[in-house]
């Protein structure tokens, strides 16, 4: 315990670290806010950039960027309905309608404070629960991942669709698209039509930029006649009373975020969507109907996605397996400096472990600072005439799509998704489940096939659910989620 304090106070012995965390967080917030720039790209560049630096300094900078970027995506999601990062996809569902009502400032303010709280809670889980949570992550078998993916796909009903059927169609389409490319397990080409470009499949960020960014821009162009919405920017910071009122929801969302983040292969993006779904299901009287500016619809995903940051470090530091895309790059950064994260890192390199903890805490505070500042300026962006703003967004989408893999074809695919997304929006088909399908496809498919290979048959796979407490719990959760949507259950609850 005493050594932990010693390691934590390193930031006071090396104040440069504090500056670097601040710089990183600032960069992250703005990188996240610009659609097209991703955190993975930024952190990858920083790994090479900081290779000659000391490990402490390099880590401080990169951790700041990580925390910043997960939050930063909410800015553009709220203002433009274009998530700047995959973790902010759910934030736009209620954040944007709030902005349309002139309350962008309020939305951004609450997104900031909730991200801060979620981030701190995630770090606490990391600091005190890492070994335990590491075991939790390790106990996940293939069947458990399949059940988790199914739970994820069940959220299609909540992601902004009027009918479940529409959501399912979008989800099925999304999973199908996710299957395109060279199959990772058998190296067979699936649906590539002879195009070498498609060998690596469709990148979900291209899909996200197209479906949420460019499609939205096209859709909004059809509403040019609508006037500008004047933004109220006086009451930005939510009152203490508001924060306390939503505390139960905050805790629930943080738990979802930490648990999902702690699983290798599932990160803030999935956590945010699952959290939004649980908020939608279990909030009796939201401040506004979900999808039309409910505060709960911002609180849940924003808390969860930042909590998932702390959570994502758990498998990285205890199992050596990245918890999400950015921690994968951080793993490489650590190993370049001679460190190999694994179950023993907490014991063999406690200084690095506690450095990560304290940097994440500092980054959270800087998030609060940078997040709350500049809100007024950003709110003005929404007041720019659409005729100017939308083409700019289209161009940023082009650059963003290209920047992922330096491929011109990504730009074409992005526009294709834009057209698909536009028609979906036109006919009230939800776009969220489409992206969710693409994100969840690898998780679902690889684990399903592995499960079949391990147990030998479909019934065998099903019955393996009963051989583990965890699987059983997940299965019961699925049953509960299905049943709680039926009318019978709702009547029963009202009694």
């Amino acid at each position, binding site marked *: 315990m005493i050594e932990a304090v010693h390691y934590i106070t390193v930031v006071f012995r090396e104040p440069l670290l504090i500056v670097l965390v601040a710089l990183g967080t600032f960069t992250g917030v703005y990188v996240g806010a610009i659609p097209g720039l991703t955190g993975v790209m930024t952190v990858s560049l920083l790994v090479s950039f900081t290779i000659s630096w000391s490990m402490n300094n390099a880590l401080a900078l990169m951790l700041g960027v990580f925390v910043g970027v997960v939050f930063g995506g909410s800015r553009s999601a709220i203002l433009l309905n274009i998530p700047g990062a995959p973790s902010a996809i759910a934030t736009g569902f209620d954040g944007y309608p709030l902005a349309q009502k002139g309350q962008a400032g309020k939305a951004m303010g609450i997104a900031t404070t909730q991200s801060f709280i979620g981030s701190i809670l995630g770090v606490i889980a990391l600091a005190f629960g890492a070994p335990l949570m590491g075991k939790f992550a*390790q106990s996940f*078998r293939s069947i458990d991942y399949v059940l988790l993916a199914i739970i994820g796909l069940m959220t299609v009903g909540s992601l902004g669709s009027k009918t479940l059927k529409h959501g399912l169609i979008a989800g099925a389409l999304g999973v199908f698209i996710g299957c395109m490319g*060279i199959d990772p*397990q058998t*190296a067979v080409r699936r649906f590539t039509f002879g195009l070498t470009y498609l*060998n*690596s499949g469709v990148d979900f960020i291209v899909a996200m930029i197209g479906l949420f960014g460019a499609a939205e821009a096209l859709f909004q162009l059809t509403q040019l006649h609508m006037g500008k919405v004047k933004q109220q920017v006086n009451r930005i910071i939510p009152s203490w009373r508001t924060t306390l009122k939503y505390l139960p929801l905050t805790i629930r969302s943080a738990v979802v975020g930490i648990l999902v983040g702690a699983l290798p292969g599932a990160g803030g993006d999935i956590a945010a969507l699952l959290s939004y779904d649980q908020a939608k299901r279990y909030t009796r009287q939201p401040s506004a109907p979900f999808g039309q500016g409910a505060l709960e619809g911002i609180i849940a995903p924003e808390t969860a996605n930042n909590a998932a940051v702390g959570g994502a470090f758990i498998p990285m530091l205890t199992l050596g397996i990245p918890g999400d895309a950015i921690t994968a790059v951080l793993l*490489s950064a650590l*190993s370049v400096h001679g460190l190999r994260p694994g179950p023993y890192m907490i014991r063999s390199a406690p200084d690095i472990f506690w450095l990560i903890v304290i940097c994440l805490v500092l980054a959270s505070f800087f998030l609060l600072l940078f997040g709350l500042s500049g809100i007024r300026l950003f709110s003005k962006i929404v007041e720019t005439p659409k005729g100017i703003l939308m083409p700019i967004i289209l161009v940023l989408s082009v650059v963003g799509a290209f920047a992922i893999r330096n491929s011109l074809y990504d730009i074409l695919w992005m526009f294709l998704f834009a057209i698909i997304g536009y028609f979906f929006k036109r006919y009230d088909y939800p776009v969220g489940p489409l992206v969710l399908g693409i994100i969840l496809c*690898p998780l679902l498919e690889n684990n399903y096939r592995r499960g079949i290979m391990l147990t030998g048959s479909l019934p065998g796979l099903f019955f393996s659910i009963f051989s583990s407490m965890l699987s059983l719990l997940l299965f019961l959760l699925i049953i509960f989620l299905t049943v709680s949507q039926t009318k019978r259950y709702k009547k029963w609850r009202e009694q």
Partner: protein
Amino acid sequence: MKKSIAIIIIILAGAMNVVLCACNDKTTSVFPAKNINCIVQWGAGGGTDSLMRPLATLAEQELSSALVVQNMPGATGSIAAQYVYDAPIDGYTLLMSAENPTLYQALGISELTYADFDCLFLIGDETVGIVVKKDAAFISFTDIVQAVQDKPNSIKLSTTGKGGLPWEVGAFIQDVTGAKFNQIPYDSDASARNAVLSGECDFTICKVQSGLEYHREGTLKFLCMFSLEPVEILNEVPAIIEEYPEFARYLPWGPFYGVFVKQGTDLAICQKLSSALATAAATPFYQEVLTNYNINYLGLSGLAAREYIETWQTNTVQALENSGALTR
């Protein structure tokens, strides 16, 4: 007044655009005139990536141009290989890869092989071993083979997919001992290792650097090393030939890592890149990286590298054909 301001702004804007276009003028004669893209075949944070990023950063200093490292994992690395092959043959796109491309054609993964690439620098290779969970019933490798012979298909080997390291060694084992395993593919060698830790699978093939710490702590144990002699750092673990001497005809064997460029690239450019990489690899910093990862340093390029790769390919394909993993 307003109009003249507007005109000035327009002129400035136009000038800026012209300048930007000029900046992007690609016709300069000295190589390298712009950033060089380095495409890593496997994921960020993995074994290949961790070797390549430091090398790229050190080589940058020799070349006075940035080496931008990008990961393009997927399809056993063939996506990255195809990308580099499709890129213009000007020396600005490099492939940073492991041993997998030697088998693409044989496996039907891709039409490409290392014959389509020139090796700028072959970094080194490493030794791998067989690992099981700490309280597994197997005391030696022979036990595993015995278990399979008693009950066919009962032993699960976690792999990284067709063409990956565990799959390759699995084929060698099948050729020599006749043992056939139930192979379960995972996304990365870390996941495959975790599958053994959690008990989902019985054993896997692990590189020294990935399994060392676990072996020391006791959660995983190396049953034997796939080599002619025990490895220095793990000298209590026997070499596989002590139990099955027939393996000797395939050893020494191990995954290797190198930097490649499309075949036919201008020789002067290749030489410049090779020497930059060689200088970078020779630095004490990088040598320490190699020691940390237990890589056997080779430092080959040109003809010597080509010979090494061709021998490796022939031996491996032979073993895979003998074992039936590959059809002739």
